[in-house]
């Protein structure tokens, strides 16, 4: 049974870590430092971040070691979704109003989302860009950060935990947790329950981070427009990185195309309240 809970605010959202015992101050400091280090590289909401510098001028940029799995995942999903899920939607998101100042007002002139190979090359540790480009890892970054925080917990001797980064979860331990699948149209309701154990579940929905007139944060990079065919997704995988990335990719590709490279369970909900889910989904859907 989880006994201790540590709640804090990070990357603009509330987090909660549940553990059998209190987490030591040293480990808490290490968690906070890890999150700060990640944010300093990948946050497009920070004026001093690496991705903000990359958006200012072309060049070759060295990334920390944690970047390799992230870029690798993005490349796999970019391919599997035929370019629809891309880290290059950043400028278009700003253009639509989802910017550092949260103006939430779409500009009149549209910007195109560049094709990956036209504008940047990733060699495993360095990114070379041929033009200023705003990299946005929002589709998988939070799930990945959950993994990185769990790594710090394990380094600190904590091996049973539930990390909850505002709805993106990673569990490790002998006792599974029951996780409600929040109804995308009504946070007081759930459409099912997932039995989560030694795995991550991440969710994505078009209607939450939405700012009117069909504008939300999940963009189809091939059109530059918010996608509308799927309302919400949940993906269960062994890591937060993969679960979070797949939760977004499932807006653009059906499960079989993604199952070539990844092992996962999933739920997709459509605008007409239909749900589609994997037969092996660990839990129950209310149908």
């Amino acid at each position, binding site marked *: 049974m989880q006994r201790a809970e540590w709640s804090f605010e990070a990357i603009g959202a509330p987090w909660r870590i549940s553990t059998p015992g209190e987490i030591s101050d040293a480990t808490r400091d290490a968690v906070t430092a890890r999150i700060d280090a990640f944010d300093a590289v990948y946050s497009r909401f920070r004026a001093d971040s690496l991705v903000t510098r990359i958006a200012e001028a072309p060049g070759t940029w060295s990334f920390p070691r944690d970047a390799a799995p992230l870029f690798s995942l993005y490349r796999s999903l970019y391919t599997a979704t035929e370019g629809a899920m891309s880290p290059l939607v950043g400028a278009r998101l700003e253009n639509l109003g989802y910017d550092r100042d949260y103006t939430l007002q779409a500009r009149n002139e549209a910007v195109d989302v560049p094709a990956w190979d036209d504008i940047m090359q990733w060699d495993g540790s360095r990114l070379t860009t041929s033009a200023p480009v705003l990299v946005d890892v929002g589709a998988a970054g939070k799930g990945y950060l959950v993994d990185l925080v769990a790594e710090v917990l394990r380094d600190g001797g904590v091996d049973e935990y539930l990390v909850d980064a505002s*709805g993106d979860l990673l569990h490790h331990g002998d006792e599974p947790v029951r996780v409600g699948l929040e109804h995308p149209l009504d946070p007081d309701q759930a459409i099912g329950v997932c039995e989560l154990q030694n795995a991550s579940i991440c969710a994505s929905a078009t209607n939450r981070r939405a700012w009117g007139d069909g504008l939300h944060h999940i963009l189809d990079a091939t059109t530059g427009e918010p996608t509308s065919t799927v309302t919400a997704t949940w993906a269960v995988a062994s890591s937060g990185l993969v679960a979070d990335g797949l939760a977004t990719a499932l807006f653009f590709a059906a499960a079989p195309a993604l199952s070539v490279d990844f092992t996962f369970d999933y739920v997709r909900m459509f605008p007409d309240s239909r749900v589609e889910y994997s037969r092996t989904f660990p839990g129950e859907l209310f149908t």
Partner: protein
Amino acid sequence: MNIPLTTLKSRTARTAFVAFAGLSVVGTLAGCSAAATTGSAGSGTSGSSSNGSTSSGSGATTSSSTASYKDGTYSAPGSYVSPGGNEQIKVTLTLAKNIITAMDVVTVHADPTATGYEKQFEGGISAVTVGKNINTLNIGVVAGSSLTSQGFNKALATIKADAKS
């Protein structure tokens, strides 16, 4: 509606596609019949029929255009590339004395993100969901996106307030 197979070829553009789909389905059924004769279950079957008969889908005796077909209702999936992308269709047609007496073409996927693989995905289950009140469920955590960035939520609240004033 009684449409002899041979007249299908001379229709207008939209119908010409239907003719193509219909003919390719017949070709598919011919393939099924080969499988059926070797003991496999025929997949080109349908339980409904406008004339009351139900075919096993093994009716095509040959695959040539001069073939005679067993009466019954046949159903088969197909696909084609429309200006909007790849579309999955399901074609159902009823044959009586080598004449198509009824034909129905429906687009299987209203969801453009679906691919032809989807139907083959063994694990996929589709159903209509009904939400349950979270308080009635024995759950400790929720996977969802209601707790999004607080900066975002504040900005949205401000904009809504501005819009009202």
